[in-house]
């Protein structure tokens, strides 16, 4: 894992003290809310429905046990005993007091964490593959490149006031587990025909009110030009992105309106100029960063055999455990989606338990996934049963990874001031209704957003749900056919919306259409793509 150097630590510590002074001046009445609001937002502090909300950055979703434990302690000390893991691989606290925020940030800084650039029109926390460094199918660990870009984008003076927020994902596998093409910039580390590692750039993707899949703008950027190319992409956006209309300000609109070819031409022109200016950090810096991401000391010859005699354990094994690159090891996903629970929420005790399990079983490492679960990336197969027993005993052993009750849901109108409808109760009802049929239904990614901003990734759900406000009443639109992986696609609205109970019935009907039309090993998405919308519409509205 990356460890702060003195410069990193000083930067974060200085920011805490700066914000402490700003809070003091606000509370003393020397700063108006108009002046203070951009300052608190730059430190991740929002004002939501019930209280201040703090969004803490988890760079590329990677945490140490010490950091995870600190997150649990903060949940107890400054919040109401829980935290919410988000679709940006971050954690949010919902009940923060302004006057306590500087102390909270100081506790974060003590474990090399912060909330900087988790809000505002800047480059946000960079996300990545939750299986990075462990996946059998990756060509390199993507995190050193994500870390390099994190350092480049932190307090980058040119990109702190972009036309709109900016999200970057970095992956290095054929399998896209990070919704890479639905980011402002998606980077896939690739190997060229000469065997060299470089980066493919996809630019102009995103969800929100105008969802778009990022087109490939460059197949291969050499490693010693990575930052320079990213800078060129941002510069063209910063120069020409629309600032007159918030709803047309994301880079996806610029790329769409210019056209991919013209946008790329301008980026290449800017790139050529920047190459003459020597802005790229020396490769030695990348090498320094890489030393923080070496493999843990795996046990050579760790046993492969796993005793599957406990049927509940076997279910979890088949659902939540993935292949690891190292023989004798596995990747284990801890579900934060208990049946009828709140997706992504974990109590302080659960957070601390996961920290302990990360230390005991996963070389002191944990990951937050964009699907709002937690991953232990390096677990000895021989330890899986003991791990599962502890998870099971603490409400963390639900065997539902990528199943219909592994639902992504934004906080919705229960917490969020932007939301139009509640997401969580819909997720809870669907979970309770359909979890008993989990095995029968198989892989089905269900995603719920409480407004058009799409924090719940509804466009990318095999089944997506969008909450809207219809004359003061919650109403839910149903989408089918979205996908966030290698074959990224955007969901299509089925037709008129539904009430809270109606949307639950509609989803159940959609699953029944799938089951009655399924051929062979088809997933829901495969069947939908083969048979099209018509039979689903007929069943849902007929």
């Amino acid at each position: 894992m990356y460890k702060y150097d003195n410069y990193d630590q000083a930067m974060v510590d200085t920011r805490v003290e700066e914000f402490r002074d700003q809070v003091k001046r606000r509370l003393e009445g020397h700063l108006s809310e108009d002046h203070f609001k951009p300052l608190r937002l730059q430190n991740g502090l929002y004002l939501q429905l019930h209280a201040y909300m703090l969004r803490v950055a988890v760079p590329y979703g990677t945490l140490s046990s010490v950091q995870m434990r600190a997150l649990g302690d903060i949940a107890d000390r400054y919040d109401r005993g829980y935290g919410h893991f988000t679709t940006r691989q971050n954690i949010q606290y919902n009940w923060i007091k302004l006057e306590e925020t500087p102390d909270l940030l100081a506790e974060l800084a003590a474990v090399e964490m912060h909330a900087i650039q988790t809000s505002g029109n800047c480059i946000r926390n960079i996300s990545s593959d939750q299986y990075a460094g462990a996946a059998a199918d990756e060509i390199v660990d993507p995190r050193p490149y994500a870390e390099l870009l994190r350092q480049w984008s932190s307090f980058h003076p040119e990109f702190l006031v972009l036309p709109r927020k900016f999200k970057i994902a970095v992956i290095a596998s054929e399998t896209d587990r990070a919704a890479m093409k639905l980011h402002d910039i998606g980077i896939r580390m690739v190997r060229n025909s000469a065997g060299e590692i470089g980066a493919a750039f996809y630019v102009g993707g995103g969800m929100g009110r105008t969802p778009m899949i990022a087109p490939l703008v460059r197949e291969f950027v050499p490693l010693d030009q990575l930052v320079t190319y990213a800078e060129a992409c941002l510069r063209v956006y910063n120069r020409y992105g629309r600032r007159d209309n918030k709803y047309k300000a994301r880079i996806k609109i610029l790329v769409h309106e210019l056209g991919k070819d013209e946008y790329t031409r301008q980026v290449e022109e800017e790139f050529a100029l920047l190459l003459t200016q020597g802005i790229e950090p020396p490769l030695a810096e990348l090498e320094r960063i890489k030393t923080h991401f070496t493999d843990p000391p795996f046990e050579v010859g760790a046993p492969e055999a796993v005793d599957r005699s406990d049927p509940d354990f076997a279910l979890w094994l088949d659902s939540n455990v993935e292949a690891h690159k190292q023989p004798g090891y596995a990747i284990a996903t801890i579900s934060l989606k208990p049946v009828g629970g709140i997706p992504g929420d974990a109590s302080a005790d659960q957070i601390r338990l996961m920290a302990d399990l990360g230390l005991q079983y996963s070389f002191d490492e944990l990951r937050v996934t964009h699907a709002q679960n937690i991953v232990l990336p390096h677990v000895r197969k021989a330890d899986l049963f003991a791990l599962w027993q502890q998870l099971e005993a603490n409400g963390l052993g639900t065997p539902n990874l990528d199943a219909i009750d592994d639902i992504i849901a934004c906080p919705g109108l229960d917490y969020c001031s932007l939301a139009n409808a509640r997401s969580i109760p819909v997720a809870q009802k669907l979970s309770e209704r359909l979890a008993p049929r989990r095995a029968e239904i198989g892989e089905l990614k269900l995603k719920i957003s409480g407004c058009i901003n799409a924090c719940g990734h509804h466009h990318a759900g095999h089944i997506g749900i969008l909450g809207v406000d219809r004359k003061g009443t919650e109403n839910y639109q149903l989408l089918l056919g979205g996908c966030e992986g290698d074959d990224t696609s955007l969901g299509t609205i089925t037709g008129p919306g539904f009430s809270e109970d109606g949307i639950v019935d509609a989803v159940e009907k959609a699953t029944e259409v799938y089951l009655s039309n399924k051929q062979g090993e088809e997933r829901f998405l495969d069947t939908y793509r083969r048979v099209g919308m018509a039979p689903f519409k007929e069943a849902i509205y007929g």
Partner: protein
Amino acid sequence: MKILTGNDLKSGAVTWWDGVQWSLHVNDAVDVGEHADAILAREQAAQRVNAAYMIEAEKDLEGVRPAHIKDRIRALGPTVRADLTLKPADPEARDWVI
């Protein structure tokens, strides 16, 4: 009726204008009639409330009920965590919101 709501500057807690000060309980809210703008300007200048605004509500024998669900959720707390609402022991509180 027209009532005023905002968030407490220090704690962020949802508050309601009761005619004298800001209360945590929506049932304390008073009809401000045509005086909303003046009260909001005075109170925000005094740093006692944050992001305050006026909403429509109804009052009956059971109390004050904001017209929009968003403000009813603000008044009670999250509908999915009864333990964190202002009425953790009231099983029907969620029904009041919806």
